[in-house]
């Protein structure tokens, strides 16, 4: 597999949320607006890039029997870094994402890529894989957030284009499930074609 394919597989073919349905918890909970979705996606991308790089650099130094605790320590370190940096420099985004920033530690996408890809491949491939998967996740969250924001509050990126309220259900959790369901169906159709 060349690096271009390695990068682009994260967007449609092996999209972590739309095809593998990993990391659905933050995807449903934080996408009440496009900005929140993108912020969550980028935070996850940073953690993925960091953990994929470190894990693949150290893959020969980590004995098999303790690889999961070792991966988790590496991932938790990057998540705490993201948590502190976001708290310091983008406080309003940090507040709206709330508990879901520390919860990136238990996001299956991050551990999944460390275990399934970074621990078996070269550093460069792992960086490309992390970037592709992370940005694919970010794109999916951005689109999901945009759909929910347009339908739910009649706004996009914080700018209202209709006066009055939108369809309330799309701001709440059920709307996230409905919109995500349609997105998964569309991606499935594309992948089959």
């Amino acid at each position, binding site marked *: 597999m060349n690096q271009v394919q390695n990068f682009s597989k994260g967007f449609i073919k092996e999209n972590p949320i739309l095809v593998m349905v990993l990391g659905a918890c933050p995807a449903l909970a934080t996408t009440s607006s496009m900005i929140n979705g993108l912020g969550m996606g980028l935070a996850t991308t940073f953690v993925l890039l960091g953990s994929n790089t470190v894990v693949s650099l150290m893959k020969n*130094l980590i004995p098999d029997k303790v690889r999961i605790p070792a991966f988790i320590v590496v991932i938790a370190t990057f998540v705490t870094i993201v948590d502190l940096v976001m708290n*310091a420099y983008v406080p309003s985004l940090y507040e709206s994402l709330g508990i879901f920033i520390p919860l990136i530690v238990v996001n299956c996408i991050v551990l999944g890529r460390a275990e399934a890809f970074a621990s078996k491949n070269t550093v460069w491939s792992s960086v490309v894989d992390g970037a592709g998967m992370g940005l694919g996740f970010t794109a999916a969250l951005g689109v999901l957030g945009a759909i929910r924001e347009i339908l739910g509050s009649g706004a996009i990126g914080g700018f209202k284009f209709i006066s009055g309220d939108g369809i309330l259900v799309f*701001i709440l959790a059920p709307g996230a499930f409905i919109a995500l369901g349609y997105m998964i169906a569309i991606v499935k159709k594309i992948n089959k074609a």
Partner: protein
Amino acid sequence: MAKIQSSLKNMVLSLTLISVGASAALGFVYEMTKGPIELTALNKKLDAIKQVVPEFTNNPNDDMFMLPTGEGDSLEVYPARSGEEVVGYAVRSYTNNGFSGYISFMVGFLPDGTIYNISVLEHKETPGLGTKMVPEGTPEKPEFKDQFKGKHPADFPLKVRKDGGPVDAITAATISSRAFCEGVQRAYNTFEKGGMK
């Protein structure tokens, strides 16, 4: 380089190394972000205070004191002064009876006890319903909390219409509106009992 064996020595060594590396990285980032994080928290508090009391010249955060609520805890009170004269007090109040639990407020009083303005600091209310307690209205299009401005709790009972009071509750969010009133009432009770009035 070949992969190292899963012997006890190797496992202990590798986990120790990773943990030491991780703590070093975290210590460094913590030191770097400590200042900005404290500054953000302080600015957020000062912004809320600025919103709820008339213009002041002192730093209310330095003059903060605690007043007991009479329910076993205390509220933070931030006096706002313009020169020597006290122009208002911001009281950090709370309620646990929101639709989704805890809500905290900054309630601003003039020295005579009249409500100047109220700001919601933290809440988890339903988007589109309970969240309507947050925005600031304009004279043409008043929002929920505007009805409290300039009212004195002594002759404006903090109760929604359903409970026989004068407060117009947010449509479909009576519980949030009730909780809002309770939080403001707690601030006022504390303020009054503290002999500030």
